[in-house]
């Protein structure tokens, strides 16, 4: 448990996380008249995978044929778990937000054939502008201020947060009318670009107040990067040829539809080589202009990716580019817990992506859309509370890593968690090429680590955020594997070696929840769709 609380703040709406979803939520809540405080564990403007990369955006002109085509394009890959109504409203909201970015935030979109090209965003520029935009709207920002737990009133309504200011060495508490979790997905500290802040903190906090997860089995995302480096831009590897370590072609390997071949070869021999030899000179130039950070690695290591063969690896992206997350209970991205809203990768993206990756355009559209809805919903909830909001008695909801139930454990919990994640979650033969025979023992060990964390892990205030991240990652992995074991078929990215076929009787979403004891609840069967297929 953290110590004294020197900094005591109030806000109508607290936003946890300062990536795209959090900043759109903050903007919307502020424009609705709420007093908004945004808390980022890092720095709003650089934190998270969007800021350090670049992203396509699911920006589609509001023409019925174009919208229909956009919605239909990935339904099959996603195992028909999407929801057409949510897809349509995401397309509408994204279209509006991108236009606002051009006119109000003056984002410097490229001009192609005399028209602004609004189907992509360069991360650093986008997030720099979002930061200044929300400040202009009156949002207060606290950087380097990880939230460590939610606070609830005696009815269980979320009514604030507690956290730590790591550059000041002080704790803080915020009394709030509503809280938006925009904490991102979980990539388990894999060093995938910008993802080390994405440790699934929000999902843990949500579960501690009684919210559940959905789609956690869709968490097998791995991205291609040059070996020993961080820059993941898998789409560009669509122009690549892959090779065994001896330079002979690795037949069947590809960035899409052949990534498992790469994983198997890496498991077998440890080496896969790559050469981006299918891009024309013109495409090579466009790649550099479109995504300059892609070339940082190559330029600095003296590699010519178009003519040299270089080693590649696959970095775990978990629920950052998978689609599992906190379950949504309303159109305003409310959760099942009053006062708690969720946006971006912290939320399930099944409604828009189904069981297939939301990476590249869908996730970014979802972040700005769900952020807008969650910020609006939270502002309305806070306003409806009235003066009552500030008179509630608040209790911390945090468990593992903050309120041990037993005696302090021996050893370093952080090291233990890193070790179990490296052995049971990162490996391709555990989380990617899934088989119940390997998932069950992995889950059993993760459960044991959880029990030890829950009973004995505690730290001083400065060490608490790290223990909470460790707890969040272990909880996340347990929900992932619990969902994976419950889906005894292959649908979307959730494939099982021993169940390679899609099973029409499992055409439904899976809700998972719990902390010490986990549970799974299959939702209602969705209407039958034609031509069900499996993503590869």
């Amino acid at each position, binding site marked *: 448990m953290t110590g004294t609380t020197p900094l005591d703040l109030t806000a109508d709406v607290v936003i946890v996380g300062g990536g795209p979803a959090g900043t759109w939520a903050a903007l919307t809540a502020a424009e609705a008249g709420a007093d908004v405080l945004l808390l980022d*564990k*890092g*720095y709003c403007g*650089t934190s998270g995978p969007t800021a*350090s990369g*670049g992203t396509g955006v699911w920006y589609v002109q509001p023409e019925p044929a174009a919208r229909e085509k956009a919605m239909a394009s990935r339904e099959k890959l996603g195992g028909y778990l999407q929801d057409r109504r949510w897809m349509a409203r995401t397309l509408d909201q994204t279209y509006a937000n991108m236009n606002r970015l051009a006119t109000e935030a003056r*984002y*410097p*979109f*490229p*001009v192609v054939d005399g028209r602004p*090209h609004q189907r*992509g*965003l*360069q991360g*650093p*520029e*986008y997030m720099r502008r979002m930061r200044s935009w929300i400040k202009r709207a009156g949002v207060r920002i606290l950087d*380097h201020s990880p939230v460590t737990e939610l606070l609830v009133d005696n009815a269980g309504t979320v009514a604030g947060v507690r956290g730590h200011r790591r*550059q000041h060495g002080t704790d803080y508490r915020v009394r709030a009318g509503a809280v938006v979790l925009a904490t991102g997905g979980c990539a388990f500290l894999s*060093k995938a*670009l*910008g993802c*080390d*802040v994405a440790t699934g903190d929000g999902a843990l906090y949500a579960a501690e107040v009684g919210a559940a997860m959905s789609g956690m089995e869709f968490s097998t995302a791995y991205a291609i990067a*040059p070996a*020993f*480096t*961080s*820059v993941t831009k898998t789409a560009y*590897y*669509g*122009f690549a*040829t*892959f090779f065994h370590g001896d330079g*002979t*072609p*690795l*037949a*069947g*390997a*590809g*960035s*899409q*539809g*052949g990534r498992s071949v790469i994983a198997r070869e890496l498991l077998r021999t440890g080496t896969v080589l790559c050469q981006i030899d299918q*891009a024309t000179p*013109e*495409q090579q130039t*466009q*790649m550099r*202009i*479109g*995504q*300059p*950070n892609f*070339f*940082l*690695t190559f330029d*600095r290591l003296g590699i010519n990716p178009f003519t040299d063969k270089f080693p590649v690896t696959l970095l775990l992206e978990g629920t950052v580019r998978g689609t599992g997350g906190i379950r949504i209970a309303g159109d305003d991205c409310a959760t099942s817990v009053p006062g708690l809203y969720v946006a971006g990768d912290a939320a399930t993206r099944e409604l828009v992506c189904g069981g297939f990756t939301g990476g590249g355009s869908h996730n970014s559209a979802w972040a700005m859309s769900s952020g807008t809805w969650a910020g609006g919903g939270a502002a309305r909830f806070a306003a409806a509370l009235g003066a009552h909001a500030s008179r509630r008695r608040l209790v911390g909801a945090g468990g593992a890593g903050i309120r041990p139930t037993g005696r302090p454990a021996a050893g370093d919990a952080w090291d233990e968690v890193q070790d179990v994640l490296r052995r049971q979650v990162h490996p391709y033969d555990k989380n990617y090429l899934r088989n119940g025979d390997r998932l069950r023992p992995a889950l059993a060990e993760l459960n044991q680590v959880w029990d030890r964390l829950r009973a004995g892990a505690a730290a001083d205030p400065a060490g608490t955020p790290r223990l909470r991240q460790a707890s969040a990652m272990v909880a996340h992995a347990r929900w992932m594997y619990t969902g994976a074991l419950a889906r005894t078929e292959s649908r979307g990215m959730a494939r099982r070696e021993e169940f390679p076929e899609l099973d029409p009787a499992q055409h439904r979403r899976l809700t998972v929840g719990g902390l010490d004891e986990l549970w799974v609840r299959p939702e209602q069967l969705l209407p039958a769709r034609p031509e069900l297929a499996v993503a590869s």
Partner: protein
Amino acid sequence: MIEIVSTSRCVTCDVCIAVCPTNVFDRGPDGVPVIARQSDCQTCFMCEAHCPADALFVAPLTHAAPDGSPLRDEAHLTEAGLLGSYRKEIGWGRGRKPGARLAVGPELGRARITPAPTPQGELTDA
């Protein structure tokens, strides 16, 4: 990972200390930031992008560069034009055109699948 804070270039503005999402820097006694927690660096290059003095260098490796590596040699990196190269590429800094203004990548079609070699060793797509 972050390898270099150039003492000669640094203007002690503290921007890198603020913007690093994983809190890698501490303020040194002379105001020049020190790399206090290198192992927390996630190699995202954001400090470089925001440094107004091109005083930082992030090696593109997810582990520390070994002693004697050219990626830790400020004179070499300056000579090679790599110090400040990311900021230049994204067009940040006075008098530059934002890279976002030009950022249109190639059309992404169907990803290529590496074909099996023919008996002659040639690669042909199916």
